[in-house]
Structure formats: C-alpha cells, structure tokens
C-alpha cells in the first residue's frame, strides 16, 4: 500500500495536522517536494475507502446493476440465446396477462402460498417465543430444537422427505391409519398439494421466532408491572404492551418472510418433480419462471416474469411499510 510507505510518515493524520507537520519540518527539505508528497497522502486517504470497497463496487455494477438493466431490456425482447434479442415492445407483458392461463395459475398459487403460510408461520413464531420468554429453564435447548428446521427447510433432502411423508404410502397416512382414517396421496391431490408446502413453510418458524425472542427481551419489565398494578390481565398485557412494543419486529419479520415466500422454489420443484403439478397446484412463480427461461429458453419472456415479481415484491414491501403507520408503534 502506498499509504504505508509514504515519506511524510504520518499519512493518516488529518490534513490539518499534516499542514502543521509540514510547516514544522519546513527547513529540513524543499517545500515543493513536501507539498507533492502531502498531496499524495491526501489522495491516498481519499482512495483508500474505494480500495476496500472495490470488490463490492465490481459486484454491484458488473453483476447486479448491469444485469438488472439488461434483464429489463430483455423483458421487451424475444430472446432464446441462439439469436440476438429481438425487440417486441410490450408483447411479453401483454401475453402474460391475456394469453397464458398457466401464468395466472402460477400467480394464484404463489399469492395463496404467501398469504396463508406467512401469517401462520409468524403467529406460531410469536406464540412459541412468548412461551419461551419468561426465564424458562432449558430455554436455549428449546430454541435450538425449534430453530433447526429453519436451517434445512429449503434443502432438497427435506423436500425429498416431504414427498415421502405426504405420499400415498407415506408416514402421514401410516399414522392416520391408526385412527382408522384412510389417507390419500396428499401431494398427488391438487386440493391438498399446496397445503403440504404451506406446512413445510410453517415448520420453519424458528428463524422469526429467534428474532421475536431477542425483541421480547428488550420490552422493559416495568411496563408489565405497571399494567399489573392497574389490574390488567394477561391478555390485556399482551394486547397493550407486548404487541405494540414488538410491532416493529413483527413488521420486519413480515416483510422478510413475505419476500422469502414469494421466491420459494426448491420444495415445489422437488415435491412435484419439476412440473408444478398436479394440475399446476404447486406451480410456484419461480418454478414457472425457471421452466420458461431454462427449459423453454424463452429468456425474454422469463425476464418479463422476473421484473413483474420484482415490482410486486417492491410494492408489497412498500405497502407493508405504508400500512405500518397504523399499527406499528415506535418508541422513541
């Protein structure tokens, strides 16, 4: 690094200090040379942050911002990678909404998945976090056990397990047989297939639970004490203390989990064998995007899908934040 070998000896001092330094050492050398090295030192200090940031800058411009804009362009083209992109205007977007029933299925499936699984998952996370909060013995053990599924929930291994469990000869049906209930193939039935994936997502409630647990610890205990003095019961303290104090974290978890759920891919792919079946009932948005882009090589069309997903996620996030003013309580 140039800064370390700089002849002024104190390259990192602020420019003011350095001026004083230069003046004090004035007689020892020609002034002109000093000011050159001074300038170099200042320059080095200005450049240093960018050397730290260099990998990120390349990552941002070359493989994030650039590709994003390129994908926006592609979404207005017909592109199969074999020939150069061909401009088609809004055709892809128009076709998606007017002439592609499978796309609308994918949208419906994804919206149902997000709207059902995320609130369930968060409710469960909050419930368990509250049960664990009050200085319970063995807390860290419980926390680990409940958190574990979050780590592996998106893996192919777990999706394989799900496929067996909810299959016609699977674990679930064996258990149901004890109660004399005759099961069916839960993943083979279009009515229930999506439900098995919702269960999988709810199963991974551990990550938001850990965040809730950390937040619950920050709720000042004197609030509960005051509430008790005022004769407010358990439900009242939850409704008027816990929930408002926790609301910023609820919002955070909600946004995070919704963004995640919109992008779910692996479970649907593995459970349905890549088809999104039966009858498109597990055709997640990203699964259909993959099929169009990388099986059908309709890169322009798939880019249009990706941009709609991006805009929807941005919109949902914005709406969440906008509505949050009505229910999120910020304690300043």
């Amino acid at each position, binding site marked *: 690094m140039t800064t370390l070998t700089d002849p002024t000896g104190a390259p990192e001092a602020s420019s003011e200090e350095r001026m004083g330094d230069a003046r004090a050492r004035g007689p020892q050398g020609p002034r002109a040379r000093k000011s050159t090295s001074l300038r170099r030192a200042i320059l080095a200090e200005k450049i*240093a942050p960018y050397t730290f940031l*260099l*990998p990120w800058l390349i990552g941002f411009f070359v493989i994030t911002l650039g590709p994003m804009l390129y994908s926006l362009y592609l979404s207005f083209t017909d592109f199969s990678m074999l020939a150069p992109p061909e401009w088609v205007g809004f055709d892809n977007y128009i076709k998606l909404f007017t002439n592609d029933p499978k796309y609308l299925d994918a949208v419906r499936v994804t919206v149902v998945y997000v709207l059902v699984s995320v609130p369930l998952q968060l409710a469960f996370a909050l419930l368990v976090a509250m049960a664990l909060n009050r200085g319970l013995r063995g807390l860290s053990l*419980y926390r680990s056990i409940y958190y574990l599924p979050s780590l592996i929930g998106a893996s*192919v291994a777990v999706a394989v397990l799900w496929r*067996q469990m909810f299959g016609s000869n699977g674990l679930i049906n064996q258990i149901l047989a004890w109660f004399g209930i005759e099961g069916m193939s839960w993943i083979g039935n279009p009515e229930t297939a999506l439900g098995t994936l919702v269960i999988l997502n709810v199963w991974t409630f551990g990550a938001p639970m850990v965040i809730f647990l950390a937040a619950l610890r920050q709720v000042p205990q004197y609030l509960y004490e005051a509430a*008790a003095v005022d004769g407010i019961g358990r439900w009242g303290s939850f409704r008027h203390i816990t929930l408002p104090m926790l609301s910023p*974290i609820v919002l955070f978890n909600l946004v995070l989990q919704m963004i995640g759920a919109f992008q779910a891919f692996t479970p649907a792919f593995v459970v349905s064998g890549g088809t999104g079946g039966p009858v498109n009932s597990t055709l997640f948005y990203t699964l259909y995007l993959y099929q169009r882009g990388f099986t059908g090589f309709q890169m322009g069309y798939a880019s249009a899908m*990706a941009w709609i*997903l991006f805009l929807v996620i941005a919109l949902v996030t914005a709406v969440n934040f906008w509505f949050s003013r009505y229910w999120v309580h910020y304690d300043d």
Partner: protein
Amino acid sequence: MTTDVKFDQRTVAMTVGMKRSPARTTFKHALLIAVGLVMLYPLIWMLGASFKEGEDIFSEVSPIPNPFTLENYARGWEGAGVGFGTFILNSTVVALLSVIGNLVACTLAAYAFARMQFKGKTIFFACMMGMLMLPHHVLLIPQYVLFANFGWVNTILPLVVPKFLAVDAFFVFLMVQFLRGIPTELDQAAKIDGAGPWKTFFYVILPLLKPALATSAIFTFIWTWNDFLTPMIYLQDPRNYTVPLGLNAFLDVSGDSAWGAMFAMAVVSLGPLFGFFLVGQKYLVQGIATTGLKG
C-alpha cells in the same frame, strides 16, 4: 427502546400475579417438548428409515430399524452413474470457496461503509440495502447470459466468483451492524499510533469482528450447501453436480422406488449442516438477532 431498567424476573412475576406454580411449569414443559417432538419426528424417522430394509419404510411409523441394515447407504453412495462422494466433494469445494469469498469481500465492504468517509457513500449504502431486498430471480437470466459469454457454464465459477464480489448484501449489512457496536476510539487510537486504514483493519478491527465472521461463515456454508436453483442452472455434467443436484437426479432416476437409498443420502447431505448447527448455534442465533434488531 430502553433496556437499562431490569427487574428480577421472579419479583416481576410475583407482582404481576403470575407466580408460576410447579404444576403449571411442568405442563408448559410437557407442551413444549411435545411440540418439539412433533417437529423433529419426521427427521428422526427419516434417520431411522435410512437403516430400514426395503418395504419397512412404508409400514413402520417407529423410527427404530428392525432389522438394521447399512445396505441403503451402500446403494445410495454408488448413486446413479456418478458416485455420491463426487457430489460431496464438489459441494465442499463450492461451500468453502464461498465462505472465503464472503468473509473477505463482505468484511472489506462493511469496513468501508461503517468506518470511512468517501464520496457517494450515502448512495452506495442505499444501493447495498436495496440489494438486500432484490429478488435473486431478477438476476438469474442476465447473469446466466453474462456467465455463458465468459464460458463459465458447467464450471463452479458462477457459483463462487460472485461471493468474492460481496453480492450477499445480508452479510455486509450484518457486519456493518456489528461494526457499529465497536467503539471508534479504537480506530482513532490506532490512527494516532500511525496505522493506516489497512493496518487498522487487520490488527484492530478484524480480531474484534470474530463473532460476526463466524456467523457469516456458518450461514454462507449452510446456504451454499443447500442451494439448488443456481447450481441446477449452471452445472450440467453430473460429475460437477453438488449434493442437492445429486439427490434430485437420484430421485429422478429411481422415482419412488428407492426410498431407503434416497433417505440414506438425504441424511448424509444433512450431516454437515447438523455439524455446523451444533458447533455454531450460538453464532447463528446472534447473527439473526443482530440483523433483526436495530444495532
């Protein structure tokens, strides 16, 4: 939020009128254990099933294999065409390189964002936060076109190189949050002693950053080990497959006929994750809590 006011838990519980009776506590533990068991049962059952003989998987709810066999592991390890050992090796290489890349690139970026002044900092920081929410799928196609032009398809480069360019904004953010908790007086002291930004970074900041580094390393490992979509797009030759691809290919070939071997390899693929989970759960929990809450 103020955290300074802390009461003794028991005092509060008593004043609040929720003094826990032993029966109540026992009931709560019973309930929590029951929920935990229900949650983990599928995993325990799968572990047991991987040692069961053929048809037993479809008839036994109990996780205990009777008779016990290792045949599933032998069959699964052979895989379909390419052995499972190859997949494990590929996944290990990808995961380790990703860990190194993320640690180096994200730490450097985070240090610049948290500690240095430069032109465009506000805008770049906003961009970084934007990347946190950017769906990966928007970049899938253009990045594929880009990497295909580089001739990187069917190599691990598209999986690994981006990690060296700090595109996992989550970790940059995590480390920025962590750095904000380290007093700046330390940097200033180093500066007065004549250390440049790189010396300060290596000798002052990096040692203090250890917990955040551990969190990032573990999460990166787990996420790249689990990743399915990206490798599926780039890796076509089965000899280059990572573990999830290998599992999926095995499922495609054997269909619903070889559950024993499938389960055996699923267990093998989850093994390293459990290992990291057991060793690093403290860091995982810390990591989630740090990014989840304002620093």
